[in-house]
């Protein structure tokens, strides 16, 4: 009778022999596309960072509160793929599939690669199984953070569908950047958080927290370890086509280099009366979410 270690080793050896991965080149391509590099900012933005202030008045303030209801023809903000610029960005984005119709109620990012950023993130959403496969992908939020552009694209769920496909992206002005794909999660939770932790500017690292939150919430508080002050974020109102709202914010990492931790420990959503309406816990460490 073999002991546990021997049996585990047998499983491991078999997996190593029979497992097939896409290889290092695929990992490099995938990594480049998912990379989330952020420019840092000043300490003034550390203690309290509201999404609206990050976005700037030309972003959220001008956005219509509820998104337009589904239409049978593309709205004026929709740009069919044929109008997109040719492959002018970094090479790795050309492998993305056609995202189909992308609505842009918040307007497209400016700059040479703005359209391509939207298309890249929308392509990730298009891969997700939830929602209407032929329906539009919607750019629900965008903003800038010290020269970088971040985006959130989502696909409206079908009636009765309790999940949501959405992705966020963060790009440098050159169009290089990365995408986080959040896929379809059955039984859509009232609060989700994910993000990145090694967004570098000079010697300073920043982290991002991005997620979805129940529509009851009027404030999202992110708690950190390592003495990082809490971060309060205002949910981004995206209208009735989506069962949740979104939020995004950035925090300053406590160390100057080689800091790969995502220091988020807990995220709490509060309603207008200050009551807690949702909460999620996150263990520290790379690759984590809550």
């Amino acid at each position: 009778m073999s002991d546990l270690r021997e049996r585990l080793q047998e499983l491991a050896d078999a997996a190593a022999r029979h497992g097939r991965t896409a290889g290092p080149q695929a990992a490099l391509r995938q990594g480049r596309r998912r990379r989330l590099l952020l420019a840092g900012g000043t300490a003034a933005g550390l203690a309290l960072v509201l999404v609206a202030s990050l976005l700037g008045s030309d972003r959220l303030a001008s956005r219509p509160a509820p998104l337009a209801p589904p239409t049978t023809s593309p709205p004026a903000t929709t740009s069919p793929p044929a109008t997109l610029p040719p492959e002018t960005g970094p090479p790795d984005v050309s492998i993305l599939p056609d995202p189909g119709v992308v609505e842009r109620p918040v307007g497209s990012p400016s700059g040479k690669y703005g359209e391509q950023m939207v298309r890249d993130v929308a392509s990730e959403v298009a891969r997700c199984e939830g929602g209407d496969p032929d329906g539009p992908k919607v750019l629900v939020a965008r903003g800038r953070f010290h020269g970088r552009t971040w985006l959130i694209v989502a696909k409206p769920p079908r009636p009765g569908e309790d999940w949501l496909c959405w992705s966020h992206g963060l790009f440098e002005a050159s169009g290089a950047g990365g995408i986080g794909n959040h896929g379809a999660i059955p039984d859509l939770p009232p609060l989700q958080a994910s993000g990145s932790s090694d967004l570098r500017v000079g010697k300073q690292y920043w982290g991002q927290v991005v997620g979805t939150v129940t529509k009851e919430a009027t404030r999202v508080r992110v708690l950190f370890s390592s003495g990082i002050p809490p971060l309060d974020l205002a949910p981004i109102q995206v209208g009735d086509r989506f069962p949740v709202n979104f939020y995004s914010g950035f925090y300053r990492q406590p160390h100057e280099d080689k800091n790969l931790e995502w220091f988020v420990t807990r995220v709490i959503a509060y309603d207008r009366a200050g009551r807690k309406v949702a909460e999620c816990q996150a263990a520290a460490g790379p690759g984590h979410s809550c």
Partner: protein
Amino acid sequence: MAGGGSFEEFYSGTVGRLLGQLFPVTGDLHEAEEVVQEAFARAAVRWARLRDYDVPEAWVRRVAMNLAADRARSLHRQASALLRLSPPPEVPPVSVEALALADALRTLPIRQRQVIVLYHLVDLPVEEVARTLAIRDGTVKSLLARGRRALAAKLGEPEEALYPR
């Protein structure tokens, strides 16, 4: 692998081992392939820094373990009916005993699986297991004890046979 060479060399030298370590955690070979590949993708963009780590493989393993835990939590939210209807997990050909272990591991909470694999397969000390999973040493010991007990019960074998001293 400290001060190591190219990412490709690192990948080729470690991917099999990491697949082997993640498979008992995920219980599904395809799932293990996905989380390992994703962890390598995250390592790829940080390679300039990771290559100087004493053990960059530990970083990739940690990310893969976290990704596996995230996926397990997502799956847990699925309806049990859906889980029953889902295809059986992909398991490479192994002995009956190892197959029984894979089945038994799959019934344990993800944290217990991770701790058992990191301690008994990867041979990490308790402190290193705790650091990898960002939990306390005491929690590791507790998870180990509960996991071993549960495994022995699932396998119908006495604990001392599974964990000879």
